[in-house]
């Protein structure tokens, strides 16, 4: 099909045009970090005599003694060679830290998005099919409720209820029960790795750890997804082509799914992409509350310690993921909607 190649071309163009934005993010973050009033050298210097000398030593070690433009150039050069610097908080190279932590964040976010979509789409469709009915109002209300509780509160309450009081959930201490041996590293996604290793007990352990944090995150994004599903579904149910389908006697299920829902999913796809990138960056608090060893909580700790490198690395990573997600959405959209290639 020719529109696939057009889609590919479009995606390529989109990618190329997003590079300046990435560069902008890079520079902006760098400068913002330099504006932070905390001096990491001082923060990390300790010892009774930690005087000028020791602080200077750390400053030199971090390259902070150079003028800012030079630091920026060095930083850009380092990034070009794949070196994101070293975290003072964990003592590891930022790249290694991000690499080992990103799967955790991605796994959590994917699961949360999946939960959110599986909840939001049926809710939105139900609300649209029975517009103005009790179901519609209920869905609207549930969605409004979901977005008005801060994630850290819902997270803590869920832990309190399901772990502390009921004892159903496993201890909220990371990705997998500490006494379960981790699977051999393949993808870093525990659910996949356990499955590959055929260790279903471990899979269960990892899955049960995922439920609460993923649910906490999902709670917050069900609303926008359900809202857009409902609106898009209303639009396509009221559209001429659905009327056509009805007038031709197509089975109701076919009308709703193949004609209405498939068209309605296009805007949902776009929003889902945006939701995914925001979730990934905004799950700081969820990761914090659930001791989830992800990239966001890593960046938060670094930020509070004025530890530049991890924060810069994190922002760059998030921006790149944002670009990749946008691209993916573009490509999917191009596949799903033949009209795109004409524009």
């Amino acid at each position, binding site marked *: 099909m020719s529109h696939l190649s057009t889609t590919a071309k479009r995606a390529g163009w989109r990618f190329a045009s997003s590079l300046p934005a990435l560069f902008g993010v890079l520079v902006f973050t760098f400068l913002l970090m330099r504006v*932070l*009033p*905390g*001096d*990491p050298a*001082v*923060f*990390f*210097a*300790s*010892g*009774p*005599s*930690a*005087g000028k000398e*020791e*602080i200077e*030593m*750390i400053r030199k*070690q971090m390259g902070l003694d150079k003028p800012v433009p030079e630091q920026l150039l060095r930083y850009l050069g380092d990034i070009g060679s794949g070196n994101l610097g070293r*975290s*003072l*908080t*964990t*003592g*590891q*190279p930022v790249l*290694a*830290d991000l690499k*080992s932590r990103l799967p955790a964040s991605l796994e959590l976010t994917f699961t949360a998005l999946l939960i959110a979509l599986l909840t939001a789409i049926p809710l939105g469709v139900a609300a649209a099919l029975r517009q103005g009915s009790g179901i519609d109002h209920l869905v609207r209300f549930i969605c409004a409720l979901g977005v008005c509780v801060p994630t850290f509160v819902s997270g*803590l309450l869920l*832990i*309190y209820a399901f*772990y*502390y009081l009921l*004892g159903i959930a496993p*201890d*909220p*201490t*990371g990705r997998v029960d*500490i*006494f379960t*041996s*981790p699977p*051999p*590293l393949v993808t870093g996604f525990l659910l996949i790795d356990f499955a590959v290793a055929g260790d279903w007990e471990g899979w269960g352990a990892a899955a049960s750890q995922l439920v609460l944090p993923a649910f906490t995150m999902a709670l917050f994004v069900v609303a926008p997804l359900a809202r857009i599903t409902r609106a898009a579904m209303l639009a396509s149910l009221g559209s001429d082509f659905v009327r056509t389908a009805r007038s031709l006697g197509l089975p109701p299920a076919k009308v709703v799914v193949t004609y209405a829902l498939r068209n309605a999913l296009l805007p949902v796809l776009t929003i889902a992409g945006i939701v995914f990138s925001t979730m990934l960056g905004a799950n700081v608090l969820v990761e*914090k*509350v659930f*001791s989830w*060893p992800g990239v966001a*909580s*890593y960046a938060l*700790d670094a*930020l*509070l*310690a*004025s*530890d530049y490198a991890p924060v810069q690395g994190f922002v760059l990573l998030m921006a790149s993921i944002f670009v990749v997600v946008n691209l993916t959405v573009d490509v999917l959209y191009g596949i799903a909607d033949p009209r795109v290639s004409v524009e």
Partner: protein
Amino acid sequence: MSIVRTAALAAALLTSTALPALAQTRAETLRHVTGAAINTLDPNIPGSTREAFGLSLLTYDRLLSFGKKQLDGKWVFDLDTFKPELAESFTVSPDGLKITFKLRKDAKFHDGTPVTAEDVKWSLDRAVTANVLGKGQLLTGSLTSPDQFKVVDAHTFEVTLPKPDKLALANLAVVYPVIFNSKLAKSKATPEDPWALAWLKENTAGSGAYIIESFKPGETTILRRNPDWNRGSAEKPAAFKRIITQTIPEAATRANLVEKGDADIVIDLQATDAADLEKKGKLKVISTPQYNSITFVSFNNQMPPFDKLEVRKAIAYALPYEDMFKAALFGRGAPLYGANWADGKAPTGATFPIPQPLKTDLAEAKKLLTAAGFPDGFSTTFSFNVGQAGTAEPMAALLKESLAKIGIKVEIQKLPDAQMSTLINEKKVPFFTEGIVAWLPSMDYFYRNFYIGPIRWNYSSINDPQITDWAQTARFEPDMAKYAALGKQLNTRHFELMPQIPLWQPSQDAVMAANIDGYVYQFHRQIDFRDLSRK
């Protein structure tokens, strides 16, 4: 990077050979949760966290370690007694200038190499030469140069001092002078990095009671027992076969974990959780006032209006001590206010800090403020760092409320930790709260490190010639009576000048399963897992 790989490799090996080990009874494993993270395996690396210090005591041995003593029924470390670790015994020459260590002959590093005096020499040379944290610390015990360290024979080692120094031995028991496997370390050294700083940061080369099984910074550290280690009190390996340290940032979750029995021990709970768990009575709660620490409200003595003694005193009279202690700490700690000095002089000089005769007296405060030339008060900011918000925030609110009563308008400023450190270092914060800890809590050590000169830890920026003079004299005063007399003068002057207002020594609340034994409050405020056992 390599440690991660090693750990992964170790884990991979373990899955085949040590699966039974993983399935080891829960009883032989100790699960410890903490809010902080370990960031290096070598405590000497600038930037090491307190948790990294804690870890180093398990993976490395030193020549000696502190003894323990009971303080109000709680076991705490004792600055004045030592027990040998790698040293079998030690002798101090009569003139106090020479310390000779006899090393254990059965001690081996993790790779099986025997520990020799060469290793000790290399390690101590490194601590005083390389760009490491140990350098600054060891100089407080007159240990400054490799020339002071001499290998007598393979198992005899000698330290010479320029002057008899009471803190020389103590300095060898802190975390920095750990003994490295010098052969291994040297093999990893490079011309640019002769002390193998880079390699040791991510690898261990020690002889300690535990071996690192996996190390994920900011997540988990798993230690396995070194079966050959026998430097403990009972000359046998540590009691727990495995120690798991997990980072759980949320304090409330840590409390839940230990209460549910999922974690065995935790020492960084919020006061409220500790109090609650103590009340429930299911767990063992050992609450030790951190006798080597002070939480204070400090002024920058060089910045107006706090350069005026009356202003400082006025504020000291205006603080609602009892309320602050109750609201911020839930009464968990040892107050440093409310003493009664009969003659206006410090009752003792052998130790610092001691409770001071401070009490809330707003009338007096108002009078002093008027005397200082501020009858209508003034405006200032009061700072604390985000990391301490749990206790500092309520404290600050009470302080603000109380000072408002004498006309001082306070704006509360909560700063991220790094910012606060920077500002304090630049001596730009006029009025704030902080806490200090001395590993070696002798009276003169406190004064020398926190109240003299332009050093970073002189939070109050006090520069009193008399304090400086007395403190330096006390350092080398061998006569304990004279030492105490100097201390009495210092303590009195410290109160009179009121450079900062000591509030209390917060408790370290160690909450553990009821069957855990052997907890001792340590100088570095971490748990020495080698002492712990399960009944």
